[in-house]
């Protein structure tokens, strides 16, 4: 029986695989430390399901947590390399810039500053002014320029420093990019990627913390993706750059520094994660948790805790917001009979709301043993004080609580 270690969120949430162990000296983790078991072995099937991509991470800029990482030999082959999400994005862009001369990156501070969050580190040095372009602080203008460049045959990557600033340019994303192929009856494709960090960060307050998954996910003509881990980040960014359509690429600043194991296959230059396909990160039988981006990690943490009480959660990582992989969600719900969606964004008209509506309208409804519920960000602008911010976002305990409610435990 595996006892994977979890840290609760405030100490810096870890998502260990069965082959990693974490020790921490944070008080708030004392609940979990008692359940460490260094000699226990995971079952082969659990190994397989968990080996793909999890690692431990330190939450950037927060309370220091001393961590001892130890890797245990397991039956499955060791993952090739540990890569954090930032580097995965960086490598993906580097490889795609090399592969296709028409690809270029523009945005604020992407060149000489190496990227506001260092995601484009080293690219300007390697590719120069022509392909890595620093823009003035004029989102509407440079987003329009990026779309125009896509009209004329280039393949721009347009970075928004955060997706909050995309609101200044949202007309170009929707009316100029998303709708043009349709309005022109197929004469004018728009092969552009808009990317940047989305959703809440840490202490950046209301104007810098909004999640735009639901806003962009609403619009036909866009593909909207929301990677969680490094494999997602790498594969989806490559897929987005190679796609001939406008892709909204929603990253997460708090995930940038988180390392994950990447297998040799994933590190291949032509590795892509198909847009529009969700991934089951953890198999389970009692309830389905559907999530995207950072919250996937929280779902896995909650699942670990619940497993000790005999509740086996199936965790679905959406990977793509639009088009939504309803088939994977329905298949899971038809298996487990219970559904909880988890997202960082606000509840009203959100991603979870859409998932619930789809389940209502489809075959999976008849398999539900209880109403589907949503775990979401609190319906308020993001406050600044840490205690308030912590209570504005879904916590692992909220997921556990909701699961138990839905299962009538």
């Amino acid at each position, binding site marked *: 029986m595996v006892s994977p270690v979890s840290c609760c969120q405030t100490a810096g949430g870890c998502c260990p695989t069965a082959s990693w162990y974490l020790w921490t000296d944070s008080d708030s983790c004392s609940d979990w430390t008692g359940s460490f078991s260094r000699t226990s072995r995971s079952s082969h099937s659990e190994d397989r399901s968990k080996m793909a991509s999890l690692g431990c991470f330190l939450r950037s800029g927060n309370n220091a947590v001393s961590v001892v990482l130890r890797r245990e030999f397991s039956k499955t082959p060791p993952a090739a390399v540990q890569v954090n999400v930032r580097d995965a994005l960086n490598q993906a862009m580097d490889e795609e810039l090399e592969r296709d001369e028409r690809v270029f990156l523009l945005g604020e501070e992407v060149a000489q500053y190496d990227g506001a969050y260092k995601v484009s580190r080293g690219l300007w040095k390697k590719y120069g002014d022509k392909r890595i372009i620093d823009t003035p602080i*004029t989102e509407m*203008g440079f987003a329009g320029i990026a779309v125009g460049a896509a009209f*004329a045959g*280039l393949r721009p990557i347009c970075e928004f420093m955060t997706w909050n600033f995309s609101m200044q340019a949202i007309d170009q994303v929707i009316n*100029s990019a998303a709708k043009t192929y349709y309005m022109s009856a197929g*004469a004018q494709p728009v092969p552009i990627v808009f990317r940047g960090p989305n959703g809440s960060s840490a202490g950046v307050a209301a104007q810098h913390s909004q999640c735009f998954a639901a806003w962009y996910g609403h619009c036909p003509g866009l593909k909207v993706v929301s990677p969680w881990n490094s494999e997602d980040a790498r594969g989806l960014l490559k897929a987005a750059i190679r796609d001939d*359509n406008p892709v909204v690429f929603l990253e997460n600043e708090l995930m940038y520094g988180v390392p994950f194991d990447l297998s040799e296959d994933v590190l291949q230059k032509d590795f892509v994660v198909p847009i529009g396909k969700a991934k089951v990160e953890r198999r389970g039988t009692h309830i389905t948790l559907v999530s995207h981006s950072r919250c996937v990690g929280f779902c896995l943490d909650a699942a670990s805790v619940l497993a000790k009480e005999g509740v086996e959660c199936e965790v679905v990582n959406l990977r793509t917001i639009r088009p939504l992989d309803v088939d994977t969600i329905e298949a899971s719900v038809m298996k487990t009979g219970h559904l909880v969606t988890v997202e960082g964004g606000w509840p009203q008209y959100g991603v979870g709301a859409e998932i619930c509506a789809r389940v209502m309208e489809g075959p999976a409804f008849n398999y539900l043993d209880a109403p589907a519920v949503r775990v979401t960000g609190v319906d308020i602008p993001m406050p600044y004080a840490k205690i308030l911010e912590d209570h504005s976002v879904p916590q692992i305990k909220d997921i556990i609580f909701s699961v138990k409610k839905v299962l009538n435990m």
Partner: protein
Amino acid sequence: TLLPSPLLIMVASSRSYADFTPEKVDLHRLEEGPPLTATLTREEGLKYYRTMQTIRRMELKADQLYKQKIIRGFCHLYDGQEACAVGIEGGITLSDHLITAYRAHGYTLTRGGTVREIMAELTGRRGGIAKGKGGSMHMYTKNFYGGNGIVGAQVPLGAGVALACKYLGNDQLCVSLYGDGAANQGQIFETYNMSSLWKLPIIFICENNQYGMGTSVERSSASTEYYKRGDYIPGLRVDGMDVLCVREATKFAADHCRSGKGPILMELQTYRYHGHSMSDPGVSYRTREEIQEVRSKSDPISMLKDRMLSNNMASIEELKEIDIAVRKEIEDAAQFATTDPEPPLDDLCSHIFANDQPFEVRGATPWTKLTSTS
């Protein structure tokens, strides 16, 4: 009768007109401007005449069809401004690029569209240039990026096209048009900035027809000298009713761009006879007298016709024949546009994504499953 002469040296901007004052080209941050004389060949003259007349009659036919409710929605007509579209095209080539706002039927024609497909798009038929999916404001041809409905948005798009030209090193440029109403848009100033910083091969053209919808330039703009609004960008203002002026100014601007000097801004002083759109009679914010005065003193087609006739470049009969041919072309196109079937319902969801597998689209109810193909 005198035989028409093949070649003539003409003085550009010879027109004088009550409210439009340019007797020369106005310059901003330019030591010298386009030449004040231009050479018009008979062939060019006849071509410009025919194209302008085609635009004129096409727009008037659209007016008619709109009143018969065969065209619906938005319809922004270009009659009066023909010299701009035709003159600009005379100064660039079809391998250059152009983008404009919603008053786009004239440009769709000069950029290679046919009257048939333009009219069929207005009537929303499958033979339309955008297969009925776009309508009046969303027509596209090669190197012509519409037709854009959001005021001002086309200007940064045009700069993006120009960036691609520079990036690909193909010596092409992009003409990015906007009106006096759009000229105050913030994103245009953002575009001036980036185009100048990066020396993009873009010609900004402000088609100043004196009114942004119902708001005259005096009421919308603290500075109505639109050719100076680019500040650090060199600018020139010319008579937009004179096709030769427009052509020479465009050639000058194109040379400027192609020499790597970066952007340049042209203001064309012009006038629209119709209201802002078909739902605007166009007389609540301006007088009928004003419209009539422009028609009688500055009509672009009349001006060219008079020039050609008075210089023996063409005979009245010849021009009449062109008129007849144009009318026939418009009638045929209108016939096509009114009889061509509407797009098939199968097309409803197509063209969402390029180069993709077909996928399911949710219809109006959960049971309506539609398919989208690329």
